[in-house]
């Protein structure tokens, strides 16, 4: 692609400029992707280098250290205690003790079974007492996987703590050698609310995130490589085990007949993206439009209009969405009203719980989402609109711009610049907008063509509601849900990566900062 310098660019005609920018935008996508991949590569390279440095430092510490330091390699915290930092040393020692206790009490067991996810499943066993075969339960695959992951986490934590303990020894030796005094336990405690305050603050939130977000996600990502489902629940009916990439193959390869996951996935992904696009941009522009109407000079009762809209934010969504879905039901108020007025002779199936018409329900969910979203966008854009410097408008008026030109040349670029990141998050949130779809249509109408796939798929289903349905269904193909989850992550990650890397180049042209 030909690139222009600034002066050449200025000489292009309007159409050429637009074309050039469009082409540049798309040309930037591969570069952005490449940079993203390179970044990941760099990350691993740096990681390897860092590990190398750490190892070298550990060896050096052992070589140069005194006996207290060397003993600390085995008994964590020994050096600290021997040098008078009892509190630190005890904490290290306590962690080591807890770790050893955990490994003996179960951790080792879980870890050893992790590769097979359990050897003995539930089976019938003859009991001499009862003189009958009774069901005996064996290993629990679910627990093995869960506690196996937990144990790996624990081991990583131990390695880190062990490293910290060695570093402590080295630092302590250096300090003592330079003739200074070590921090006492009391000073350590004091520093927790001062120079180490950030660690204190982060401790709880990060523990929460690791236990309740990171661990479950890792677990579920692993589930995608197993056959964990309703009939292999890992304990009551059968064990589940590793199956490699089989589930991804099921999801992504095109099979002509039978269960055709890839076609279903493609269909739902397309609708998900269409939905996210419309849900984001209709709300954005209409919300901005409403905000501008209310903000216009000469409009009275501004506060009243805003309050009416904001009121709808306050009411929990499940009430308003469920109620609205019932309003549009076949025997709902809207149909009743239209029938009474004689405008229609037969009730319209807006939400398509029965009909096979995909378009009307899809349009309806987008429209109702506008109803839900405009108040938020009105609030957000009002604040930003009022922050646009008035002199921009004044100078553009002197330059002879009309209202439409002011909007396209000043308001819109300013808004897009300020809210660019917000639009991105809003788009990705809409990809995962479970509530609106599930509460409005529940995915209906049913997509008969996709009946082969798990979790009765409907035309308004998003990937996320499909995922939910799979887990709730009778078969509960958790592994399929997990595959979908991973694919959703990939879609969101790629979109974010591209937009983040391409966005700055658009931003520069409209720099308002």
């Amino acid at each position: 692609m030909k690139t222009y310098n600034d002066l050449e660019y200025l000489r292009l005609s309007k159409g050429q400029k637009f074309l050039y920018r469009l082409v540049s935008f798309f040309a930037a996508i591969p570069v952005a992707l490449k940079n993203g991949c390179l970044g990941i590569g760099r990350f691993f390279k740096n990681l390897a280098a860092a590990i190398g440095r750490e190892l070298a430092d550990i060896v050096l510490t052992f070589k140069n250290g005194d006996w207290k330091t060397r003993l600390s390699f085995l008994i964590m915290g020994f050096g600290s205690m021997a040098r008078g930092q009892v509190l630190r040393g005890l904490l290290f020692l306590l962690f080591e003790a807890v770790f050893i206790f955990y490994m003996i009490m179960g951790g080792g067991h879980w870890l050893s079974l992790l590769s097979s996810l359990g050897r003995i499943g539930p089976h019938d066993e003859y009991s001499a007492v009862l003189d009958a075969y009774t069901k005996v339960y064996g290993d629990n695959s679910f627990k093995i996987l869960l506690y196996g992951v937990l144990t790996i986490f624990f081991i990583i934590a131990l390695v880190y703590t062990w490293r910290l303990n060695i570093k402590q020894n080295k630092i302590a030796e250096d300090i003592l050698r330079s003739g200074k005094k070590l921090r006492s336990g009391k000073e350590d405690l004091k520093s927790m609310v001062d120079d180490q305050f950030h660690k204190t603050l982060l401790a709880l939130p990060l523990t929460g995130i690791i236990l309740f977000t990171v661990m479950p996600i890792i677990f579920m990502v692993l589930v995608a490589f197993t056959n964990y489902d309703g009939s292999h629940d890992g304990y009551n009916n059968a064990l589940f085990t590793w199956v490699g990439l089989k589930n991804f193959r099921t999801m992504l390869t095109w099979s002509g007949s039978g269960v055709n996951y890839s076609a279903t996935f493609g269909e739902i992904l397309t609708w998900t993206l269409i939905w996210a696009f419309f849900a984001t941009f209709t709300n954005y522009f209409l919300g901005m439009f409403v905000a501008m109407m209310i903000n216009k000079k000469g409009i009275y009762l501004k506060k009243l209009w805003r309050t009416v809209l904001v009121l709808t934010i306050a009411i929990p969504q499940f009430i308003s969405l469920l109620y609205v879905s019932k309003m549009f039901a076949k025997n709902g108020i809207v149909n009743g009203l239209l029938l009474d007025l004689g405008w229609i002779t037969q009730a319209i199936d807006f939400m398509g719980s029965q009909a096979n018409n995909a378009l009307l329900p899809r349009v309806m969910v987008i429209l109702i989402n506008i109803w839900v979203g405009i108040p938020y966008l009105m609030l957000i854009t009002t604040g930003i609109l009022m922050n646009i410097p008035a002199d921009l408008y004044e100078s553009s008026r002197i330059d002879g711009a009309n209202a439409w030109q002011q909007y396209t040349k000043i308001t819109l670029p300013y808004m897009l610049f300020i809210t660019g990141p917000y639009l991105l998050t809003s788009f990705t949130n809409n990809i995962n907008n479970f509530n609106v779809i599930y509460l409005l249509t529940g995915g209906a109408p049913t997509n008969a063509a996709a009946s082969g796939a798990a979790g009765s798929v409907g035309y308004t289903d998003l990937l996320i509601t499909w995922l939910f349905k799979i887990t709730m269904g009778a078969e509960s193909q958790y592994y399929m849900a997990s595959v979908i989850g991973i694919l959703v992550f990939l879609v969101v990650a790629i979109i974010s990566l591209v937009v983040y890397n391409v966005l700055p180049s658009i931003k520069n042209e409209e720099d308002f900062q």
Partner: protein
Amino acid sequence: MSNKRHMGLRASAHISNTLIYIVLVVMSVVWLIPFICIVLQSFRVESTWQVGYVIPQKWGWDNYVALWNSDFKRWYLNTFITALATAVGQTVFVLCMSYTLSRFRFKMRQGLMRFMLVLGMFPNMLAMIVLYRVLKDLGLTQANAVPGLILVYIASSGMGYYVSKGFFDTIPKSLDEAARVDGATRAQVLWKIILPLAKPIVIYTILTAFMAPWGDFVLARYISFGTSAGMNVAVGMYSWLQQDMIGQRYTMFCAGGVVVAIPVTILFMCLQKYYVEGVTGGAVKG
């Protein structure tokens, strides 16, 4: 000439303003109608199923009385307790996280923020399956769903640090520095200087944390798992609108909706100012 032009300007402004008023009135009606309908239907006593008209033929409190005699009380209490606990816990977590990320420059800061960004790209529905099983092992599901829900709501809430970090970033760093020179520890800086100045964002965080449990449906449904005693209002009332129940419970749903909406709406309206500040700031900061 100039006089005529002047008149033209004013006339066109008049027309456009009239148009805007018409649009705004129509919008207000469209936005309010569902809520007006809900309130009216909740007083309908002649039938309990969906009907094609809005104004009840017979008015009465029957639906509210029925509500009082149903499990709704329990659900309401469950939700209220959850919301209260979440409001406290989540606020503490979010403020710890966002203040740290805004004010401290430590080695892993950038990495941590990027990590949480990537983590947020996973659909959190995935985690629910595991969380359900873990909570079940801990005995925190079904009838005991409330503490389980609270735990899950609070535990990961640190990831939602974005809006309040944006707010903290707008408080000049020199205030922290001045206080530190004046003899304050970092903890005292947070407590005596930053928190009093961050009142709007604290209220915003409390408000959003308090409101979220009223609308949460998916996780709450998972964890209560069909046990009425552990349900929140959203899960409980959702079941009323299913095929088998809607005939008897539709008007009760409307009444329940009113009972749920009133306190939340009043609270929201009182603290609206802070909500608007938080939402706007959050969008600007991205």
